[in-house]
């Protein structure tokens, strides 16, 4: 059974259909990508998956259960974590504190535990710190853990987001344009990291990406959408040679305004 099964998803904003009858699957242990020209609705799909948008119809099965119209925090708890296209770090907090936020949904200490500093609360705090540090060391940022997140260079801020997403103990990681704004070397590191997350940590990955080089290199399955509808699906080669895809990206021949 697929880890993520999106069925006939429809999303409209005041009558305008942004996602049209979209279906796709992500199998366990794979790296899948969702691509499409600007404005094709990729991020909207992510927002539906993670509960930020409420689809009009269709269904989303995750790990055997429907997560349709569930609240974002419950979806994260069910094991789906995301990063944002535009960085959404907790800017004035330290790198470590940022990553610790991911552990929130896996821990439970409440006000009373905090006030009395009970044994279990202390143990939990230690666990939160140690797991968060592990996540930071996985993305190679452990030395920066006490810096304020906003003082890091852009590329490192992206890594903080990845570490933070890892700390939620996800089954499926959704990366929204992880390569945006990264330089050549950072992109190479990113590819290595994506492969390590899948191979070493066994986490399934779904990417949205503009950088075709990156998508073609890492994805085992690519879904192409345009105007909110699926136009092609398959491996990198299959998609690259698909006439509809070429048309969507480059325009058909009779359109010569570009």
């Amino acid at each position, binding site marked *: 059974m697929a880890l993520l099964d999106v069925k006939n998803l429809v999303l409209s904003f005041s009558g305008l259909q942004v996602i049209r009858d979209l279906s796709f699957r992500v199998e366990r242990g794979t790296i899948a990508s969702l691509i499409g020209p600007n404005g094709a609705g990729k991020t909207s799909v992510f927002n539906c998956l993670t509960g*930020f948008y409420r689809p009009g119809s269709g269904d989303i099965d995750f790990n055997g259960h429907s997560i349709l119209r569930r609240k*974002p925090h419950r979806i*994260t708890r069910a094991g789906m974590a995301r990063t944002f296209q535009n960085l959404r770090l907790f800017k004035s907090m330290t790198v470590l504190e940022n990553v610790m*936020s991911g552990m929130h949904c896996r821990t439970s200490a409440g006000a009373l*535990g905090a006030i009395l500093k009970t044994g279990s609360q202390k143990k939990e705090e230690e666990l939160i710190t140690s797991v968060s540090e592990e996540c930071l060391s996985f993305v190679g940022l452990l030395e920066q853990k006490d810096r304020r997140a906003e003082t890091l260079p852009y590329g490192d801020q992206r890594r903080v987001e990845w570490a*933070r997403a890892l700390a939620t103990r996800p089954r499926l990681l959704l990366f929204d344009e992880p390569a945006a704004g990264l330089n050549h070397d950072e992109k190479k590191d990113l590819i290595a990291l994506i492969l390590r997350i899948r191979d070493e940590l066994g986490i399934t990955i779904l990417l949205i990406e503009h950088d075709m080089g990156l998508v073609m290199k890492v994805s085992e399955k690519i879904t192409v959408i345009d105007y909110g509808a699926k136009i092609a699906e398959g491996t990198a080669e299959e998609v690259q040679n698909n006439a509809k895809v070429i048309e969507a990206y480059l325009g058909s021949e009779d359109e010569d305004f570009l």
Partner: protein
Amino acid sequence: MAKPIPSTRLLGWLRPQRNRMIVLTVLAGVAMVIPLVANNYVLEVLTNAWFYAILCLGLNIVVGYAGLLDLGYAAFFAVGAYTTGILTSKFGVNFWLTIPVAVSCSMLAGLIIGGPTLRLRSDYLAIVTLGFGEIVRIIARNLEITGGASGLIGIDRPSFLGIELSRGIHFYYVFLLLAILACFISYRLQHSRLGRAWQYVREDEDAAEAMGINRVAVKLYAYVIGAMFGGVAGCFFAAKMTAISPETFTFSQSVLILLGVVLGGMGKIPGVIIGAFALVLFPEVFRGLGSMRMLIFGIVMLIIMLYRPEGIWPQRQRES
């Protein structure tokens, strides 16, 4: 301007844990000894300052930690005061037994008002809490059990270990201890999983939600804990005054408490205490100015907000 230099130097000196403990011990010692040397007037003013410190620390959890603008905080303080007032004066319940009831009532009030409204974004919350504050005051003004516009009188003075708490000095220590307890609880909460969650939600609600944090629950937590602080302060307020009236719990009271929090520095415990003291001491110290003093108080506040928008207490500096 040479002013900022000593403050950062002072901070550098305060930073090591050991020095901070010495400073805290000295301050606590001074606070303990003051009533032995102060006259009744000074004692009364300082008691009032500690009382406001408790209220400001409670509101600080809502405004400073969770970033929710609450314009009706006096309502929780009223719920606490009226619960104790009604139970002791009309039903003869022992004062100490009214505290858990008052705390439960203010918690319940927090849940009722916070539950539905904390789903809204914060601007709406400010309006709803403002309305809530007025509703509580008007209810108190119109019900028979709350004594109507003239309020309640004859509220029992509590006794502790056989001593009736009646003199100013007793209440000074009561409020001092409560303020220390409030600091302790605030500190522990701030540096906990819950405290971090408040900060996450305050900085970026959507990102916090994407990290699996239930933002409504986390905010409700802050709101209810803040309400409990107000409720407890209200209990002891009623016991100290032995009489309460609805006019104690006006909108301007809520604004005053909020002012203490913002003035001293939101989210910073020493700042909030300084804010509360500034609030109480300033009008007293400048009593000689007569009716001009509120005007001057206003101008001073404006200046502080213009030059130190983050409050009087300096921002925590992190080593980068």
